[in-house]
């Protein structure tokens, strides 16, 4: 038996995933019925039953959202702890890259949370009205969400079953280090251009939120997320670790760095997700939600401030940059 699968944290994680699948399966059956039969203008027993089940459906998906957020944070915590069992791994980076299922799994899990947040947002808009205008859309959308969960479970199983304790893996310094002559940054950027792009895109996204330019938010936010990933991994991270050669998106989740990774990545995803949802609401439903916008602005601002302050504090302390 694979030693990883007997690890207590992995067992807990996989149990939570099973529970999520169970909740989602019940919700899926109701969603399917709603897509097929929902008609708010009907007064038949079937429709009244469906209206009651609709509340169960909503509660289940809300539980799914709630647990998925904790589950994803827990997943990162688990893979970080697993580096002790995987030869060569120094942090979660080695563990998640130990086979080809890890990275897609993590990305899927983040995307899943985005989808559920978007769902919950439509749900709020739906219940605000008196006629359940988006209930069928919500149910159809959930069927896609359910398929995403199936994909996650598929990657979950493959990832943990193929995690070997006897195969050495690369650590983060190898994974994210500059291979000879090769530039790891996208679009062949150098660090200076990367940073210019980072702050520029931040200003564009933030400005577009202030000016409520929805399509610009929809375009610029994914790009900002992409550039922010590289900026944190290849630049800001080195200031968190105070080592110019230490490039890793995962080590910052460790106690040594005061678990700052949770705050940095958390604020980035919260900010970009809410900005995107705000823009989708504005474009699709013609609804401009002040609260969403405010949360997005605060989160993105917090993210940029935290990242920048690591560089600033280093400079104040040492009088030089790394």
């Amino acid at each position, binding site marked *: 038996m694979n030693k990883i699968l007997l690890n207590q944290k992995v067992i807990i994680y996989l149990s939570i995933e099973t529970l999520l699948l169970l909740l989602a399966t019940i919700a899926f059956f109701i969603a399917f019925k709603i897509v097929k039969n929902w008609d*708010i203008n009907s*007064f*038949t*027993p079937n429709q*009244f039953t469906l*209206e*009651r089940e609709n*509340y169960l459906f909503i509660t289940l998906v809300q539980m799914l959202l709630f647990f998925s957020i904790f589950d994803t944070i827990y997943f990162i915590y688990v893979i970080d702890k697993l580096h002790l069992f995987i030869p060569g791994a120094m942090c979660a980076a080695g563990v998640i890259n130990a086979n080809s299922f890890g990275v897609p799994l993590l990305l899927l899990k983040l995307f899943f949370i985005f989808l559920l947040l978007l769902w919950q947002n439509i749900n709020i808009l*739906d*219940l605000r*009205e*008196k*006629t*359940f205008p988006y209930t069928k859309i919500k149910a159809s959308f959930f069927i896609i969400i359910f398929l995403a969960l199936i994909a996650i479970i598929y990657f979950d199983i493959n990832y943990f079953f193929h995690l070997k304790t006897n195969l050495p893996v690369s650590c983060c310094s190898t994974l994210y280090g500059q291979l000879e002559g090769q530039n790891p940054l996208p679009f062949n950027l150098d660090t200076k251009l990367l940073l210019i792009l980072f702050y520029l895109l931040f200003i564009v996204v933030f400005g577009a939120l202030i000016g409520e330019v929805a399509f610009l938010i929809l375009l610029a936010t994914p790009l900002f997320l992409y550039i922010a990933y590289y900026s944190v991994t290849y630049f800001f991270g080195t200031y968190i670790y105070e080592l110019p050669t230490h490039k890793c998106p995962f080590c910052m989740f460790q106690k040594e760095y005061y678990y700052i990774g949770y705050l940095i990545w958390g604020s980035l995803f919260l900010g970009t997700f809410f900005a995107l949802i705000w823009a989708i609401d504005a474009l699709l439903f013609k609804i401009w939600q002040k609260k969403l916008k405010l949360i997005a602005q605060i989160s993105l601002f917090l993210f940029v401030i935290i990242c920048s302050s690591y560089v600033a504090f280093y400079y104040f302390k040492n009088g030089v940059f790394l």
Partner: protein
Amino acid sequence: MIDIQNLTKKVQPNQTILDNISFRVKKGELVIVKGVSGSGKTTLLSILATLDKPTSGKVLINNQAVHKLPDLHLSLFRAQHIGFVAQHFNLIEHLSVYDNLLIAKGALTNSIKEAKSDITKALKQANILHKKDAIVKNLSGGEKQRTAIARALVNCADILLFDEPTAALDSKNSQTFLELLQNLHKMQKTIIVATHDPIFDTLKAKTFIMQDGKLYE
């Protein structure tokens, strides 16, 4: 106005409590629903009070299919339009008369001053103002009922529902209730009373008979 079309309530697939009921109540009308115990009166009132949902059929109150509203809208509708005096009153026994009304008022007001004057007005209308600081559990049956009526009035509901209002009253208190009921009727409230008490036969009102879940004129 209340418009009910083909209302059916089943608790199990084979147990029908309300069987395809249709009737209308106009604004300001006083309606008595008579029927023996177990005929389905309380179930009907609970559905009209939007506390229970039908199995099938239409219930339109002020042209709104109330049971089709999302829960939040439904609660608001109930608070604004419906005053329900349940058979056992459902008051909070360890609170004062005034506080029972304040809780009912709380959901719909932002201003303490406005709440105070509405509560005083409702207590006066239900003739229980003199007991406003008494704890509910120390009140007599008639006083409890008048507290419940005051609570039903506090949000200026236009529809009042009474379930077996004289069941716990002696004949003197029953007479007092009838007078109060007529006053409310004069205030243009739409009123439905469910009862098996023959005392209501003396009243000039539209009467329906309920029998085994069916309604007859």
